[in-house]
């Protein structure tokens, strides 16, 4: 398979490390002089930007967490004036203070290239028709597929949240060759296809690019067998760029991290100690080229392991294992991230329920499909009339749907 930017993606490993070192020093200088948060953090911990002379020295810098991003909402983490920012993104479903991520024109240009690298790496060319069935409203990175496809010259059909029937019809009529969506939506389309007894060979589909939620190998197998396609994984981090931090290549031996733009470490989530290659732990990323929203040692909460041996595809960029687990309590339901903390926050705002609650996830095809929230109610609930109870249940459901963008089942009663 072709490599989109061979000078970079297949560069000598030691040269790559030198490039990373050069860029790391620049980003540290920028963060220290332009972001109050980093200057304070450096000064408090006694780290001087001049101490960062090698990639090894990065360990001296404290981690950045999601809490830091929340505490500095809205613009405290920005390294450039707002005037330089051309996009502001606001991930949904985050609890506590929201966060807002800014991008300069250059940031967006890099992002677009990274998605294009992944597309090229799995064989997408200007002959392809890409059906993007991501929710463009909820998944803010979806539009990046359009722009990356333009860079490659492929055609995009943004079918977004059209029903599975419509997706299949378009797939057939437009002769889409690539399906890009969450794996759970791909499964849903697949089931509809089976129910309608459609022959997958009547479709032109041959590649699937899936991400935004964990999907085990077993799911990949099912999708590949039923659609008769090759399915690939794409990875992103909503606080940096999502999608586009890493992606699988044709060798499917892990996801290549774009190390010219991100420096990756894996740490023990409990001790913060850096782990060596091959050991599983929490992925920590440092942006090396981001202008607007540089993040130094950002804890992604995603669990993975890193591998540095050269890949058979010719790329020298490190590979990370597919992310199937998290270090925090976040769960992913049909591609939507749900933080239990967010649910607590919603329940706290409603009279007569909580604080006790439990979550129950129903799986379909080994993927989280439905979320049920069981909420503890104050004792009076059992003395009120049934319709008022239903009304309460509905208001909880509505509030949760508004907050996390997902329809959840709500049950009011005792926690077992």
């Amino acid at each position, binding site marked *: 398979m072709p490599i989109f930017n061979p000078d970079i993606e297949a560069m000598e490993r030691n040269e790559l490390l*030198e*490039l990373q*070192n*050069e*860029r790391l*020093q*620049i980003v540290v*200088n*920028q963060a220290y*002089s332009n972001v109050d948060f980093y200057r304070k953090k450096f000064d408090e911990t006694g780290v001087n*930007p*001049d101490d*960062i*002379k*090698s990639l090894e020295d990065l360990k001296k810098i404290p981690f950045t967490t999601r809490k830091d991003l929340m505490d500095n909402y809205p*613009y405290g983490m920005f390294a*450039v*004036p*707002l*005037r*330089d920012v051309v996009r502001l993104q606001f991930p949904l479903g985050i609890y506590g203070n929201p966060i807002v991520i800014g991008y*300069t*024109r*250059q940031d967006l240009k890099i992002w677009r290239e990274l998605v294009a690298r992944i597309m090229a790496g799995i064989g997408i060319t200007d002959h392809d028709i890409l059906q993007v069935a991501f929710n463009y409203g909820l998944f803010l990175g979806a539009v990046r597929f359009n722009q990356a496809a333009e860079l490659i010259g492929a055609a995009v059909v943004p079918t977004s949240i059209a029903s599975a029937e419509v997706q299949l019809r378009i797939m057939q009529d437009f002769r889409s060759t690539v399906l890009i969506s969450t794996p759970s939506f791909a499964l849903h389309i697949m089931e509809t296809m089976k129910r309608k007894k459609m022959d997958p060979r009547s479709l032109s589909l041959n590649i699937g690019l899936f991400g935004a939620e964990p999907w085990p190998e077993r799911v990949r197998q099912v999708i590949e067998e039923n659609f008769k396609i090759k399915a690939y994984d794409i990875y992103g981090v909503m606080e940096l760029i999502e999608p586009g931090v890493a992606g699988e290549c044709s060798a499917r031996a892990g996801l290549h991290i774009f190390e010219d733009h991100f420096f990756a470490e894996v740490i023990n989530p409990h001790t913060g100690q850096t782990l060596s290659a091959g050991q599983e732990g929490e992925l920590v990323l440092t942006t090396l080229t981001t*202008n607007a929203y540089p993040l130094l040692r950002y804890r992604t909460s995603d669990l993975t392991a890193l591998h540095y041996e050269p890949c058979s595809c010719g790329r020298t960029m490190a590979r990370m294992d597919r992310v199937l687990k998290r270090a925090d309590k976040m769960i992913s339901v049909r591609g939507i991230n749900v933080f239990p903390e967010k649910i607590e926050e919603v329940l706290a705002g409603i009279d007569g329920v909580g604080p006790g609650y439990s979550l129950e996830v129903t799986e379909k095809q080994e993927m989280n499909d439905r979320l049920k929230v069981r909420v503890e109610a104050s004792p009076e609930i059992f003395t009120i009339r049934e319709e008022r109870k239903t009304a309460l249940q509905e208001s909880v459901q509505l509030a949760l749907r508004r907050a996390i963008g997902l329809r959840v089942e709500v049950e009011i009663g005792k926690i077992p």
Partner: protein
Amino acid sequence: MLKLKNIDAFFGKTQVLRHVTLHVEAGEIVSLIGANGSGKTTLLNVISGLHPSRNGSRVFLNVETRGMKPEKIVALGILQVPEAEKVFNPLTLLENLELGAYLRRPDRVKLAEEMEKVFQLFPILRERKDQPAGTLSGGERQMLALGKALMGQPKLLMLDEPSLGLAPTVVSEIFHIVRSLNDRGITILLVEQNAKEALRISHRTYVLDTGRIVLSGSGQELLNNDEVKRAFLGKDYRGKWER
């Protein structure tokens, strides 16, 4: 071709370069831009061995040049055209060019051939070849300085403010020449106040600020970078922070 890693440099106790890390690939034009006193010239002087560096490494064509005498560095192929006093005013143009080849000591025939090449590049110098360099105009003097450097057959040519004090038409001619030298295979490291022109002709650029590298990117990227526009291209912004 050239790899600097964590270079520190001092004037007395004042640190003027802080762990500067950068690289120049063969065939590139790389420019360094930055305000007065940001350390650009010192960096060039460090590379050519005129100013001592502390710590770090300076590798040119896989040879560590730290601690080398300037003439040894010149012999490796690094030539610097300084900002001022770039030619010997009392000497004629011919003598200046001859001195440019001094370290290599080519024979007469070879020398004449090489000079011919310089004259082809700068016809104006041929017309004035017997005049003392002191009688030349600013632009001609810059051309002579470039010609003299070419006589040294550089692999890496370092130019310190080649456009300084020149009329706008001459400036664009000088930059045109710089680019044509690069087309002939000479790698160029350029220090410039004229950020716009420098960015236009450079493959890559580093921005120095009080001895630290604070930005890098392709010339085109930085031409569009708002921070660079504010600092070097005269675009005015009311305040740095507009929250």
